[in-house]
């Protein structure tokens, strides 16, 4: 199947889960990444059960925060 990962079309096996995609894409600090599929935010606890579909568009966003102290 073809999916769009961070704006780039890629070929992945049918049945690929979000968890597997994060592993395959070698995402830095995956525990701190927020993921959207077709602009919907996905709960972290559902990463392993979320199966990607043809034409899905996936974005990886890092939590961005900090503090001056």
């Amino acid at each position, binding site marked *: 199947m073809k999916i769009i990962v961070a704006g780039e079309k890629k070929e992945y096996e049918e049945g690929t889960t979000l968890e597997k995609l994060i592993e395959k894409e070698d995402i830095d600090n995956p525990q701190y990444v927020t993921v*959207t599929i077709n602009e919907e935010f996905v709960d972290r606890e559902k990463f392993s059960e979320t199966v990607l579909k043809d034409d899905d568009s996936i*974005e990886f966003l890092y*939590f*961005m*925060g*900090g503090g*001056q*102290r």
Partner: protein
Amino acid sequence: MDYTEYIYPFTDEKIIIKKEDYNSILDYCRQGIPEESCGLIGGKKDENINRIEKVYFLTNIDHSNEHFSMDPKEQLDAYKDARANGYDILGNFHSHPESPSRPSEEDKKLAYDSKAIYMILSLMEDNNPVLRAFHVEKNSIVTEHEIIVE
């Protein structure tokens, strides 16, 4: 402010920002006082030059003078807009209304994207805003990028 205790090695990477974008960041962060303000920087990287082409002003959903968290929805919109314009999100900026321009312990701890540029604007001195840009490694080692305002 004496910055001698906040000296970091410079990287080979430089950052070029337009004067109008620099002024926009300054205005936005000043208007945000007493809260910390934040946003993203979009642009292009060519070898060792990171050229900022567009600044995205995001909401600090913490609404705090000591912390910031970017609104994830606005973050997503900025990523999409940057891509539509042929830019990458090069990193982010935030203000320190009452402390120097240096990555705090919390900033370092929360710098999850080791590829990103972290710009910090200190507004602790009214007439002397200080904008610096940092790179934070996974092990919290900090280096600094030279900023060229043109």
